[in-house]
């Protein structure tokens, strides 16, 4: 066992050394350099761990073998994660990453809690790996890296990072809302009996589901607060015709998802857009969703996971979460903000589609020159 564990750790040392060489020779944008340095630091930590395990093995204490086995497993698993999730954004870097990188660089720099946090982009559906103590990876589809219309989704993903940076305070607020959900969704006979308990099956499951769901609604609100009209338009454009699932899902399927039914998210967004004075866009999105639902023959029904009585408490919860996390307002943007360009892209896309492509290419080139040099 001792020899095999030593072998595993020596292999880890070799793998880390190979990965380090590949990472060090990669050519990336300047804004990604801190990310490269932080992944290299993870490699260095793994190198030190492997050496540490070899030293522990050298003591030859039989009863420490389970400890060294766990430490070795942990190091190997972490290395797999670095190798498969954190290294690829560096190795696969291409010039096409510059547009999302510039937007993320601006977002991070404008918020005190995210300033200086290393980040990178990678391929995939819109998503993020937002751990405050680790480098941040934003994922987005290939063509969306090179075009403007759906870039505001990165602001929603940035919302997850804001959540992670304010987790303790925001978890409190979400917990309060979850308890409200459990009470509101309880049948009257159960409500009259006293506090809803964990034995009250469905209410508890629905309250649990609202933990990630509230986070998603919060991230939409962050998207709207920073991205303004462009976020609302991108959101509606992306989801409105995807499938009937955006409008209705059986209860069982809803409870398995990380996101609430999209129609609830749209309702919350439209209301918040009105509150922000984005009346025209809000009206247009509200009408489109109502018309599409009617065309699909879908009535508004959430099978008990949502009732109108929750609307005001959820809105209040999100207001409080925004106050706690302080995202930048789209009405107080600095001169270097890319948001006006994305708003302009939506205006041109809707009003002058024929000349949109050419305008977009020029706008991106000019923006990147200013933002990244």
């Amino acid at each position, binding site marked *: 066992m001792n020899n095999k564990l030593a072998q595993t750790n020596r292999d880890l040392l070799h793998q880390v050394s190979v990965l380090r060489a590949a990472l060090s020779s990669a050519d990336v944008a300047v804004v990604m350099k801190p990310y490269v340095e932080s992944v290299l630091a993870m490699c260095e930590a793994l190198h030190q761990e492997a050496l540490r395990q070899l030293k522990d093995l050298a*003591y030859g*204490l039989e009863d*420490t073998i*389970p400890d060294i086995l766990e430490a070795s497993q942990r190091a190997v*698993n972490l290395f797999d994660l670095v190798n*498969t999730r954190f290294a690829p954004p560096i190795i696969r870097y291409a010039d096409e990453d510059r547009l999302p990188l510039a937007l993320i660089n601006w977002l991070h720099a404008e918020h005190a809690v995210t300033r200086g946090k290393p980040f990178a982009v990678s391929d995939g559906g819109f998503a993020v790996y937002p*751990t405050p103590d680790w480098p941040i990876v934003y994922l987005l589809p290939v063509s969306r890296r090179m075009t403007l219309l759906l870039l505001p989704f990165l602001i929603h993903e940035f919302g997850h990072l804001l959540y992670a940076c304010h987790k303790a305070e925001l978890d409190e607020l979400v917990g309060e809302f979850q308890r409200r959900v459990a009470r509101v969704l309880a049948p009257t006979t159960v409500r009259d009996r006293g506090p809803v308990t*964990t034995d009250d099956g469905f209410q508890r499951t629905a309250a*649990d589901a609202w933990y*990630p769901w509230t986070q998603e609604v919060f991230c939409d609100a962050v998207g709207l607060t920073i991205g303004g009209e462009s976020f609302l338009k991108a959101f509606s454009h992306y989801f409105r015709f995807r499938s009937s699932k955006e409008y209705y899902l059986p209860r069982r399927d809803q409870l398995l998802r990380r996101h609430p039914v999209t129609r609830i998210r749209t309702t919350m967004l439209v209301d918040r857009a009105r509150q922000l004075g984005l009346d025209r866009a809000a009206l247009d999105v509200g009408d489109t969703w109502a018309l599409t639902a009617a065309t699909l023959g879908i009535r508004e029904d959430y099978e008990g996971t949502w009732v109108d009585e929750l609307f005001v408490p959820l809105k209040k919860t999100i207001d409080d979460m925004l106050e706690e996390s302080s995202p930048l307002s789209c009405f107080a943007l600095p001169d270097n903000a890319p948001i006006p360009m994305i708003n302009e892209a939506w205006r041109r896309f809707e009003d002058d589609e024929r000349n949109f492509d050419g305008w977009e290419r020029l706008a991106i080139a000019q923006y990147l020159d200013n933002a990244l040099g």
Partner: protein
Amino acid sequence: MSQEWLDIQNFFADNQILRAITDLSLATKYDLAGICDEERALRAGEARKTLREFFTHLDQAFDEAAQGRPLSLDHRSRELVDAIQAARRDRANFRSVLMRSGLRTGAELVDASDRRSKEALTESLDELRRIVSRHQQGSLSAIVEDF
């Protein structure tokens, strides 16, 4: 945010606990064997802090559960709380002081100074590690592809 990310987040959270368990376990065993290892002693200090915070966090979660309140935790974090509660009821397989006497005693054990307490500590850490490792497997299999 993707499910994959949540699995990664849980993987990191479990990793932090596992590291603290193993660091404290190794330092205590070296201490018992009369081996002086400064790095391990330093790491043990950090590990004690992490474990005390973990026990406090668990204690709160147990209280919430006992009061029948929905927990303000994501699904995977609650699975860990449930797994520890289940282990505490499973007297046949979990016999350490931590599992028999509860988290407050466990938190005190972290600062064990006499030989008997130190032995009780290593036994407790070993059982806790079994539970956290098993919990981490769920996240791990979701993020690192099999071949």
